């Protein structure tokens, strides 16, 4: 029965027990157990991408009134496998004058930065990769490491378009990391811990998306921007531009950026499900750990579905709109939200949890409503002046002699 209730935990226990019986020193048993865990998790994540690509193509196809892949295997499920086999046999073309080390390191780092996120995500009650006491901060910091890989790719390619694309992408990513970090403060305040597992456990009675829908919304939008997908994919808008930072990559090196993007999309969905949707929490999840895993996957797929829905239905932003959304909507909103939540939480501390959650919810909705009103106001003011875009009031250029940047 143990096996049915918690297959993963059961296997882990059996495995570590078996390792311990081999007569190795305890340190090595520990290291080998961890190595195996990491290998299994990382391989699983990489193979999972194959499924994700199929799922996403199928969904996008449906959104656009197509069938999506439907030739290779039942429902076209082996299409990504065929694509992978093809890309495996493609030649690597390294551009002349590329900085070999940076050029080759970039795709590896892009995937590694995403895979590393999986090391602190709790998958169920018993399967917790590692319960780091600063887990949430770790997620944000390692997510930011991906930026370095884009810089390496753009700079190592020895191509000015790749370089410009990389810098534009990094400018976008660091901009959206501001509301991401700020909105991550709210669950930390509510849970009183930075450990991801602690945050999940704190959501036993009420999910944080109920207590702080505004923070969840900011976190979600910033996460979509972090993975650089539509509607925030103007850096490598495939229907309009050459590819951006990865323009000089071919074969599997390009494929690795592709894998990193898909895996990142799924991983941020999982982070969102963990931080705001209660992770593995659900009826009976504490007693039957495997249910927790099922719940987490269900929630993650719901979030992932919404991101794909965004991708399939929303038009692409213009870059000034995107930056305005970040700096003039999300960042002020998250700043106001933290302050309001802190004060309201301090004032309602004596009340029962139910009323406190109601107070938090009201504050969130109030701020969201106010933001909506302000956005409408500025929108109508803009249309009155009949300008297609904001006037270039303050033209800031680096140097007049050297031309205007860009």
């Amino acid at each position, binding site marked *: 029965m143990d096996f049915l209730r918690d297959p993963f935990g059961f296997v882990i226990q059996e495995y570590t027990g078996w390792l311990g019986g081999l007569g190795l020193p305890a*340190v090595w048993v520990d290291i080998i157990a961890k190595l195996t865990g990491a290998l299994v998790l990382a391989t699983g994540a990489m193979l999972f991408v194959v499924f994700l690509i199929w799922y996403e193509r199928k969904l996008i196809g449906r959104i656009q009134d197509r069938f999506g892949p439907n030739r290779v295997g039942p429902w076209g499920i082996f299409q990504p496998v065929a694509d992978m086999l093809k890309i495996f046999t493609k030649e690597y073309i390294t551009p002349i004058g590329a900085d070999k080390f940076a050029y080759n390191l970039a795709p590896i780092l892009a995937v590694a930065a995403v895979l590393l996120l999986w090391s602190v995500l709790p998958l169920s009650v018993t399967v917790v990769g590692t319960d780091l006491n*600063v887990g949430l*901060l770790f997620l944000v910091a390692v997510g930011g*490491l991906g930026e*370095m890989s884009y810089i390496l790719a753009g700079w190592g390619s020895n191509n000015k378009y790749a370089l410009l694309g990389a810098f534009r992408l990094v400018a976008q990513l*660091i901009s959206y*990391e501001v509301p991401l970090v700020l909105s991550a403060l709210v669950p930390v305040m509510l849970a*009183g811990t930075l450990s991801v597992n602690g945050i999940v456990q704190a959501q036993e009675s009420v999910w944080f998306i109920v207590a702080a829908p505004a923070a969840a919304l900011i976190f979600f939008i910033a996460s979509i921007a972090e993975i650089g997908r539509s509607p925030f994919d103007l850096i490598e808008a495939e229907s309009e531009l050459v590819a951006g930072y990865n323009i000089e990559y071919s074969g599997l090196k390009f494929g690795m950026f592709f894998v990193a993007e898909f895996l990142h999309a799924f991983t941020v969905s999982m982070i969102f499900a963990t931080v705001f949707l209660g992770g593995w929490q659900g009826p009976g999840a504490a007693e039957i750990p495997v249910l927790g895993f099922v719940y987490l996957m269900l929630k993650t797929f719901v979030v992932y579905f919404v991101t794909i829905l965004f991708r399939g239905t929303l038009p692409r932003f213009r870059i000034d709109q995107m930056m305005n959304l970040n700096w003039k909507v999300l960042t002020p909103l998250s700043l106001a939200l933290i302050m309001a939540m802190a004060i309201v939480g301090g004032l309602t501390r004596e009340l029962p949890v139910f009323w406190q959650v109601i107070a938090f919810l009201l504050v969130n909705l109030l701020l969201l409503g106010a933001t909506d009103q302000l956005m409408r106001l500025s929108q109508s003011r803009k249309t009155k002046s009949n300008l297609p875009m904001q006037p270039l009031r303050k033209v*800031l250029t680096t*140097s007049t002699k050297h031309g205007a940047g860009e």
Partner: protein
Amino acid sequence: MNGLQVVFLLAALVSLFSAAMVVSARRMMHAALWLVLTLMGVAVIFVTLQSSFFAVVQVLVYVGAIAILIIFSVMLTRRVMEDHGDQILPGWRAAGLVAGLLFAIIVGFLALWQGFTTMLVELPADADNLLDLGQALVSPQGYALPFELASVLLVAALIGAITIAVDRKEDQHG
């Protein structure tokens, strides 16, 4: 020699080597990338000291923000890129002498201190307790004043840097 020591030595060697590359690389971009490696090495050093918080903050702030800021600045001051000439001032020998002397003096003085050879053992798990840090940062007996001053300092830096860096177009022909 245990595992932790091996990790420390590796991280320290990588950091020091890449730090040396930072100060000697000809191309600024290479120096900046070596700087990233140094910072990652220092993050590992923080891990061996069991300060999870600062290890992660090191990656978040230094690698994620400061290194990117430096790389942007390198790209903004473009002429450096084309400058493959000597990147070291003529008086570098004197600078090296000063640095070497300082190193000898610091280590010499520290070696006189009796705690120098203390073995650092593993701390209990709650040693880098963020709860305590958070409470100390806002307690009036603790660091409430520095905490607020830090905010003022950050704002001053923000305002100052924007004022300096962002000139209006008309100022530029000077």
